[in-house]
């Protein structure tokens, strides 16, 4: 090129590599990400939480027109489906959009240049998004229970349903956001996932054709809906509730592992 582009000399080296700075450990880093994400909610997410809850309450009102109140399997699945839909809206749809945006705009570089375990970033964000959904889910369940004349005594089970369905759905959402080649595709996947949770979770199962039922079985939110729906029974089959929640937990572990892998893949191009 020019006389100036002589390569620099390599003779003088540091005797030994410099000590590495500290790196963040899994749990403290997870707590920091979780806390920051919750704080974000105050700025950006509260309107969306209202939207999520209003959407579910709207569906309850609509379904009340075609489903009678009382202890029927249709009433139970409408109330349970609408409640879990809040989780799907936020944990799956919004988280897919968040990670899609972060990846598309280069925002992931911030985390990638910090010594933080991939699982901390993914689990911290997923946990925060799942936590946002608890108030909306409870509100929807209470309103639905009253509208459809279902007992509210077992609502405490939501304390297990929301985190476990939240884990499964937020893992899926994060994976969609991190794996989608473009931001628009991440948004679309999130919306599709939420639509599937809406249609397959809320509609009473008795009249659905078999292929749709198979699809329904593939969707992790179904098991959260089923577990919650069973608890409206005067004498719930707790074994089946535990089995459904076990499926949510297993899907949660799998989808969050995939999301963590997807995060590593997204930051090391």
């Amino acid at each position, binding site marked *: *090129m*020019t006389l*100036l*582009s*002589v*390569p*620099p*000399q*390599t003779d*003088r*080296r*540091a*005797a*030994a*590599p*410099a000590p*590495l*700075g*500290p*790196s*963040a*450990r899994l749990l*403290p*880093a997870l707590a*920091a*990400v979780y*806390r*920051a994400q919750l*704080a*974000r909610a105050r*700025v*950006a997410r509260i309107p969306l939480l209202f939207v999520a809850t209003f959407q579910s309450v709207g569906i309850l009102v609509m379904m009340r027109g075609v489903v009678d109140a009382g202890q029927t399997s249709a009433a139970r699945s409408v109330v349970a489906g609408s409640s879990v839909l809040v989780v799907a809206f936020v944990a799956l749809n919004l988280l897919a959009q968040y990670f899609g*945006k*972060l990846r598309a*705009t*280069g*925002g*992931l*570089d*911030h*985390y*990638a*240049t*910090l*010594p*933080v375990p991939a699982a*901390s970033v993914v689990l911290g964000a997923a946990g925060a998004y799942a936590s946002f959904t608890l108030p909306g889910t409870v509100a929807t369940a209470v309103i639905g229970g009253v509208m459809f004349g279902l007992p509210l005594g077992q609502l405490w089970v939501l304390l297990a349903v929301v985190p476990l369905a939240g884990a499964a759905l937020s893992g899926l959402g994060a994976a969609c956001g991190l794996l989608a080649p473009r931001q628009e595709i991440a948004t679309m996947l999130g919306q599709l996932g939420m639509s599937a949770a809406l249609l397959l979770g809320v509609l009473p199962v008795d009249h659905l054709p078999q292929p749709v039922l198979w699809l329904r079985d593939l969707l992790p939110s179904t098991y959260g809906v089923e577990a919650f729906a069973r608890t409206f029974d005067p004498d719930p089959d707790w074994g089946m509730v535990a089995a459904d929640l076990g499926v949510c937990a297993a899907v949660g572990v799998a989808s969050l592992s995939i999301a963590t892998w997807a995060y590593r893949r997204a*930051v*090391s*191009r």
Partner: protein
Amino acid sequence: MNETAGRAPQDTPPCVAVRDLVRTYRGGRGASATEIRANDGISLTVRQGEIFGLLGPNGAGKSTLVRQLTGLLRPDSGSVELLGHDIVRHPERAARLLGYLGQESTALDELTVALAAETTGRLRGLSRAAARAAAAEVLAELGLEPIAARPLAKLSGGQRRLACFAAALVGERPLLVLDEPTTGMDPVARRAVWSAVDRRRAEHGTTVLLVTHNVIEAETVLDRVAVIDEGRVIACDTPGGLKALVDGDVRLDLVWRDEAPTGVPAVAALAARAERTGRRWTVRTTPEEARELVAAVTTGPAFAALDDFTLATPSLEDAYLKLGGRHGGLAK
């Protein structure tokens, strides 16, 4: 080229050592895809305690180089060593050696300034109390306390940039990699950035690698600068050393009120070789010819058409152009 020129101590060991770095991208799709060499055999050494700049126009390959230094991108070939650590083999170590300020703030946008700094400190391995104390100290140092409780997304571009810079400083690292840190900042914020950088160098021997396309900044704050063009280092020296390349030449700027008076023979002769930006003509020439030109344009009809003129000693931009850099990519 003198490898160890500059204000930094001459005998410090290397902090960043890059050898023959090549990174290509595929441009376009399918059969029409072409290979673009974003980095085409880059070698450079940054010594500990240096403030070292990468100067070049947009698309020169500066950011690609920085992404490889920070472990974000794997080179096709070549080596990167940071403080004795092989970053090509262990990219994850980069995060434990350097603080990085990228061009994007989307990861922090919805956090308050204080929480963005504190969270970043925690993710650099500080305890909650230590991160909070370190964040408070940096915010005070940079004058960010009045806006500490405001979310980044609601700040002006320059303030947001300063808040991101604050986050990059929390949790001391021996190397700071700053990608155009002062973009959009007012002079007060710029001063805060450079004094924070200077303080870290004086107190901890911090090394700073700075990406810029701002010539003034490069001339005033850097110990040494590598000029990058089309993926290659076309020169590496002190700003003074680079300007010595164009020593003896001067730059004459002529600004016309309206149309240039091409009826004047001296002006007509100039028309072909002047570099024109609107009504401004710029000519690089010898002092003797510049004197004749000034005499010609400060009399008669040329003077009537002249709005302003300046005669200046060469800048780093003139050196850059002399080195064969593509024209017009640098900010003055």
